[in-house]
Each structure stands twice: as structure tokens, then as C-alpha cells.
């Protein structure tokens, strides 16, 4: 076993009120693909930011090739041989491939300030592209290449110098299946050249296709490192979600979900083949009055995408929604709202609140928007509405006039929820309504959801915590890799049941090749 190339020890990073990283240790060997996994808030991004010099850690150190290093900036990290390629391609789109590849170290004629030797620059660029298996016109602008090839060019640029560690932060998120296969094959080849690759992704198939070892972080803490070949998927999912498999198996029966609603209840919404290219394979489902439907799956599984399509927040590329006997394709959230659908989005700050508007205005917003600007809600009605919900949901604020941006996350979330409850929706879609809020508020919100369902609202509920989903829902759709891979209800609806489905989801569509070193993908552009 080779000595480690990079050792990370005791890495700690504090943010106000949060330990984003709490004494994380692991090492990366030369010639290995090391998958770094974890759910939202696990600390992956923070770790990468510390490693690549974007921000300094509060404690702990990096030992690269036996020497302690402390990259103080991204440039410093690159000089040390730590290169990073991000999800969003980080090239200059208008410049040519060659310009992008030699930028910063252009070959020049006659000294450092001489004119650029373009002939040599192009030859160097071609050599770099060869290394990543791309044949492209180096004089073409980067923006003219397909996104997958751009990603490979970005990698070529990253490994051009004297690189030792290559960090790939969700590099496959925007690639199609063939492009993913090509990238995985390249990772296999680079591993053969002795590079240590840190691979951050939420696609488990890709982890199993290419990685040698897996490190899992959860809530800023180091959970463990395993040889990929010796870690069953079910166990991996358990580590990521913080559930011990055997314990879960034993406990799960106690959590057995509520009896599925009897067949007599009325269907409120039917989605037929609803999908969006690159985000979600077509899904058909029915929402019934008084039933809460859970969407379970890991981050990036397509659960949020499905919720957004049901609400019209994104345009569906296939399929339709049927309500009240009318079949439509939502072109805007307004249509869905007019039919009685409500949506509490995952990103509270960027998609939920209007931060400088008051709590009152935020609560009254959806109702006012539906009435139109010519039929204003009187100030008194707005105040009564806001005060009523502030009291009913226990929103902690001195009064309704405080800008909502100044409230805590949990109270903001309650106010957004109040905005939709004021609409008396028939379908209530909640995307991670309990994320990042304290336990008390969490329980209150869960109780509130249960109450609405009991009153006959069709609830769609997304939560990373499988216990919440199984506890609060009558029926659960399990998603993985942008597809629905299973449906559970009744006695099958347990935490371990959901995890089994996530882990066992058929791997027929998994990206090839399983043997990435035997490069299957060619070098054409």
C-alpha cells in the first residue's frame, strides 16, 4: 500500500453557531480515486474550500508529500499542486481552447515580455488535450464545444502544471450519460498516472464505477473511510444518513407508517409522464385528498425537481398535470396556484422570502397576488391575517412589521408556510420544510402538516431525514438518479425499507464502464 499523498488531520472550521468541520481526518493516496460523500451540510464544500485555499481552516493541517502545507489562496494551492475543477465549467468561454489552456503561462518569444509564440501555444494545447483524450480544434472558442468536452478541457488545464491532487467537485452534474462515461474513463487514466483524485458527487453509481475508497462526512464530522469494493451500497447510504443498519432494521417496525388511506378518497391531482430533460425522467403519480405523499431520495435524486414540476416552478419538457378533469402543462406557478397548489421551496432565502418586506407582507403576498393588484387586501385584513398566523404558528417576532430577513430561519420558514396556509390550498408541496431549523420548530411544523392532511389537503413532503418521511407520510415514492425507483406504503414503509430501495435500485442504467481503466470512450471531440 502506497504512503499517503495528502493527509488531512484534525481539520476544523467554525462558522457562527455551526461547526462546519469538526476534526476531520483522512488521507488520499497517489493513484487513487477517493470519493468524498455526504448529504447537505455534511461539510464537503467547506473541506474543499479549505483544501484549495479559498478559506483558512480554524484548526488542523494538510500534509502533502510529507510536508505540512497551508494554502492561503487558490493560487497558492495550485502552486502546491492541488488543482480543482468545479461543477460549473470555469473557463473563459469566448477565448479559444488554446488561449484557455496556456493562459497565465503563455510561451513567449525572447523573454518574459516578448510576443506570445502562438505556434508553440497551440502545440502545447494539443499535447494537453491529448492527455485527457480530447481531439478538438484548439483555435475554436471554448463555448462552441459541448459541455462535457468543456469539462475535460477544464481538467486538462488543471493538470497541465505539476499537479499532485485533483479535486473534482460534482463534475458530472450537468453532463449526459455518454459524457459521464468519458469523464469516468479519464479519471481512471489519470489515476494510472499517479494523481490523487478527490471525487465529490452525489451519484452513487459513479462512485461505485470509478472510486477506490470512500470517505463519508456527516454534519461536519468524519464518519469513516472504506474500500469501495468492501462497502455495500446499503451500508453506505446508512452512513450518509446516519443510520446504523441493524439498529434501523430492529427499530423500523415500531415506526411502521400509518395505514394507507382507504381507496375511496378522491384524487386531487394526477401527473402523467411529468419530466424535464436533464432533471427528471418522466413520472406519473396521483395525489389524493387527505393523504401525505413522501418523496425520498438522496440529494440530487430528482425529488426537488419533481416538486417543482408539480407546481410549475420549472417548465416540464414532457407530460401533463390533470386537476378537476382538466389536463394542462403549467407554464407558470400562477396557474398552479389558481388551482389550489401551494409550494414551500427548499431554498428559503433565495426562493421563499422577500427579505426586506415585513412579516405581514410576506404572509399576505400569495393571497394578494392571487387577488390581483386591483383588489387590495385592506391593511387591517393583512394585519389580522399576519397576527393570526404569528400566534397560531408561534412565529417569534415583536410584531408583523419587522422585516422578515431579520427573523431566524425557523421563524422565516413558518411565515412562508403561513403564506400558503392562508390560501387554503388543496395540494401542499413542502420541500425540506424542516431543514436547518431547531427541533421544537421542526416538531411544530410536522404536526401542522399532519393536521392539514387530516383536514383533507393532499400533502407532498420532502425531507432528507427518512424518519420524518416515514413517520409523516402515508405513501412514499423513492427517487434515485433522477428516476422514481420504488413506491412504499403500509407495512413496507419503514426507514430500512426506503434505504433498501435506494441502495438496490437497478443498476442497469449505471454509466459504463465498470472498468474505467480500459478506456472505452474514444478521443473524438
Amino acid at each position, binding site marked *: 500500500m502506497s504512503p499517503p499523498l495528502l493527509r488531512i488531520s484534525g481539520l476544523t472550521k467554525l462558522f457562527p453557531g455551526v461547526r462546519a468541520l469538526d476534526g476531520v481526518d483522512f488521507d488520499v493516496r497517489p493513484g487513487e480515486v477517493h470519493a468524498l460523500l455526504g448529504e447537505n451540510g455534511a461539510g464537503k464544500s467547506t473541506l474543499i474550500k479549505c483544501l484549495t485555499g479559498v478559506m483558512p481552516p480554524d484548526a488542523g493541517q494538510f500534509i502533502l508529500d510529507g510536508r505540512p502545507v497551508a494554502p492561503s489562496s487558490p493560487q497558492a494551492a495550485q502552486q502546491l499542486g492541488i488543482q480543482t475543477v468545479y461543477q460549473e465549467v470555469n473557463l473563459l468561454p469566448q477565448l479559444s481552447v488554446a488561449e484557455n489552456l496556456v493562459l497565465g503561462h503563455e510561451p513567449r518569444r525572447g523573454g518574459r515580455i516578448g510576443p506570445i509564440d502562438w505556434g508553440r501555444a497551440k502545440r502545447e494545447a494539443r499535447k494537453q488535450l491529448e492527455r485527457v483524450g480530447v481531439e478538438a480544434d484548439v483555435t475554436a472558442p471554448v463555448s462552441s464545444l459541448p459541455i462535457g468536452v468543456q469539462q475535460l478541457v477544464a481538467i486538462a488545464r488543471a493538470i497541465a502544471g505539476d499537479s499532485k491532487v485533483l479535486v473534482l467537485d460534482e463534475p458530472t452534474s450537468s453532463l449526459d450519460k455518454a459524457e459521464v462515461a468519458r469523464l469516468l474513463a479519464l479519471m481512471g487514466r489519470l489515476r494510472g498516472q499517479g494523481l490523487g483524485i478527490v471525487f465529490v458527487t452525489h451519484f452513487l453509481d459513479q462512485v461505485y464505477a470509478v472510486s477506490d475508497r470512500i470517505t463519508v462526512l456527516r454534519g461536519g464530522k468524519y464518519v469513516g473511510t472504506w474500500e469501495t469494493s468492501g462497502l455495500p451500497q446499503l451500508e453506505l447510504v446508512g452512513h450518509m444518513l446516519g443510520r446504523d443498519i441493524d439498529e434501523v432494521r430492529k427499530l423500523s417496525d415500531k415506526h411502521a407508517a400509518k395505514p394507507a388511506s382507504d381507496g375511496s378518497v378522491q384524487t386531487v391531482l394526477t401527473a402523467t409522464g411529468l419530466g424535464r430533460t436533464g432533471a427528471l425522467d418522466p413520472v406519473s403519480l396521483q395525489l389524493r385528498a387527505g393523504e401525505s405523499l413522501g418523496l425520498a431520495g438522496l440529494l440530487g435524486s430528482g425529488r426537488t425537481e419533481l416538486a417543482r414540476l408539480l*407546481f410549475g416552478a420549472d417548465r416540464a419538457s414532457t407530460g401533463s398535470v390533470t386537476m378537476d378533469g382538466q389536463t394542462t402543462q403549467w407554464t407558470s406557478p400562477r396557474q398552479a396556484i389558481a388551482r389550489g397548489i401551494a*409550494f414551500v421551496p427548499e431554498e428559503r432565502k433565495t426562493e421563499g422570502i422577500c427579505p426586506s418586506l415585513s412579516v405581514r407582507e410576506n404572509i399576505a*403576498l400569495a393571497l394578494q397576488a392571487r387577488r390581483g393588484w386591483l383588489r387590495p387586501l385592506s391593511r387591517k385584513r393583512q394585519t389580522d391575517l399576519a397576527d393570526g398566523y404569528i400566534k397560531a404558528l408561534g412565529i417569534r417576532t415583536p410584531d408583523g412589521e419587522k422585516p422578515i430577513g431579520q427573523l431566524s430561519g425557523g421563524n422565516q420558514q413558518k411565515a412562508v408556510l403561513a403564506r400558503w396556509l392562508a390560501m387554503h390550498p388543496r395540494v401542499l408541496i413542502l420541500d425540506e420544510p424542516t431543514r436547518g431549523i431547531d427541533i421544537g420548530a421542526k416538531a411544530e411544523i410536522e404536526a401542522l402538516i399532519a393536521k392539514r392532511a387530516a383536514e383533507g389537503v393532499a400533502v407532498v413532503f420532502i425531507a432528507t431525514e427518512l424518519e420524518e418521511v416515514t413517520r409523516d407520510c402515508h405513501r412514499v415514492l423513492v427517487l434515485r438518479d433522477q428516476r422514481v425507483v420504488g413506491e412504499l406504503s403500509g407495512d413496507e414503509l419503514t426507514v430500512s425499507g426506503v434505504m433498501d430501495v435506494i441502495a438496490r435500485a437497478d443498476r442497469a442504467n449505471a454509466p459504463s464502464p465498470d472498468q474505467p481503466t480500459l478506456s472505452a470512450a474514444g478521443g473524438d471531440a
Partner: protein
Amino acid sequence: MNQKGSLHQLMTRLIWPIAAVLLLLLINAVVNPGFYHLSVTDGQLRGPLVLTLQLSVYIMLPALGMCLVIATRGVDLSVGTAAAIGAAATAWACTSYAGGAAVAVAVPAVIGAGLLCGLFNGVMISKFGIQPIVATLAFMVAGRGIARLIMGNTTQLQFEHATFDWLGNGTLLGLPVIVWVSAAVAVGVIVLVRVSALGMLIEATGDNPQSARLAGVPVARVLLLVYALAGVLSAVAGLLWASNYHLSHAVNTGKYWELDAIMAVVIGGTMLTGGRFTLLGTVIGAVLIQLLTQMLQAIGVDSDVTPLYKGLIVLAICLVQAPALRQALADYLQRRRELTA
């Protein structure tokens, strides 16, 4: 309690613009004693103060529209051009028709032309996603040609019309008619925006367009409406200007009005980042800019150099309002207090 809360908020926003107006009035009293001279001629109050009110109209009307546009995170560089088009339509109507017919044609023509200008911007921005500064810049340049075409392909068109002369130069209850008309329009806009729910929907759109869209706010329609309103208000300002000077000019009518309007909005306490806005502040801002212009003229600053001082003073007022600077100042005072204590 709630009402008091928002009144307090409004006052904190308006306190600096009001203080600046008072300061300028004070400075004027020192450097230009004649500034407060008022006389009554032909039943009209005359004097520099009256002139301030009269001339600030051309800043205020476009600025009211600009304020709403800025509240949605946009900007409208074409208000001066819309004014030129409004003036051109007035001149065209008065040279093509006589008497009451001219009025009956001019008023709907001006309002319609302003509406079209604004809708053009609004469609470019809300339907095609063009950046406001680019879309309105294009129209700012192109629209001057339209003004020329309306006037029958001449640069300048003069006209005489009794009703419009009264509108631009007449007197009502001691003050210029133009001031009354503009005040009525301003009150109308404020009532329209604040009594209806439009103000709230505009503020939500500007504060966080994503959240607003997901809450069901018709963001595209809100944008269309504010640009349309800006177009109409500017065209009406153009009509008043033409009535005052008995002419329309394709190049000079409304020249640089967009800059004064933006300044009035910013000085008035509405931030360019969008969201919360105050129309009353904008009205005060417009008066402030006109006061400043007149004061600089009075102390003999060359009119070519005036923009320099205008710019500096606007910058100073904005700095005073900037949270970062106020925080730094507060920290500094706190330290001094601790040191002396």
C-alpha cells in the same frame, strides 16, 4: 401601532432628503438673498421659489415612473426620449388641428405614445429578458428618430395654441397651472400605487424576483406596468414642456432628463438595488435637484460646470445614507465617547 411603525420607517427614509432641502434653502438665503423675493404680477406669485416648483416638474414626473422602475431592480434610460415623443405629438396635433380638436387629439395621442414607449421597453425586458439598461438605452437612442418622424421629419416644430399656452404658462390660484397639474398627477400616481396592491407587488418583485414569482406574483405583468407608467408620465412631462415653450425639439426636449430622474430617485431614499421605494421621497428629490441647479446658477457657476457640483452633492447625500458609512460613523462616535468618558 403598526401604522406608527411604517410611518416611522417612512420618516427615517425621508429625513435626509428633507434635511438636504432645508440646508439648500438656508444656503440660498445666504448666497442669494433675492431667492426669497416674491411678488404678485397678473394674479400670479412670481419669484425664484415659484420657478423652482415650476421647473422641478420636468424632473418629478419622469422620476415618479423611474422610482417604480428602479424598485423592480430596473432602470429606464428612455424617459427623456419618451418626453420628446410626447412633446412631438403635442406639436403635431397643434399644427394639424385647431382649437378644441387639437386638444382632443393631442391628449390621447400623448398618453398613447407614452404607453407604447413604455410597453416596448416592458416587453423587451419582461418577455425577452433583455437587461433594462440595454433595452431602454436602445430606445433612448432610437426613439429620438420617432419624435422627428412625428413632427414630419423636422428637428424643431413650433406651434401656438391658447389652451396649451394656458397649460404651460397660465396661472391658477396664484401658482402656475403646470404646478397644479403635476401635483395632481403625482398624487394620482401615489394613490394608484399605494391604495391598490401594486406597491406591494412591485416591492416584492424588486426585493426578490424568485420568491415573488413562486408566490404567484405576475412578475412579467408588474414589469410591463411600471415601464408603461414611466413612459406615460414622461410623455406627459413632454406635453407640459412643449406647452411651456410652444415648441418641440427632437434633440433637446428631455435631454439628460433620465439622469436627473435617477438622481431624484436615489436622493429621495429609494435604493438602486430595488425593493422598498418611496414616491414622496422622489418628489422631494426632484425639488432638491432643481434647487441645487438654481443655487449653482445664482452663485455664478458656469452652466457647463454645474453637473460637476450636482454630481458631487448627490454623491455626498448618498454617502450619508449609505449603511456602511453610517455604521463607521456610529462606531467612531462610540469610540470617542468611550475615550472621553
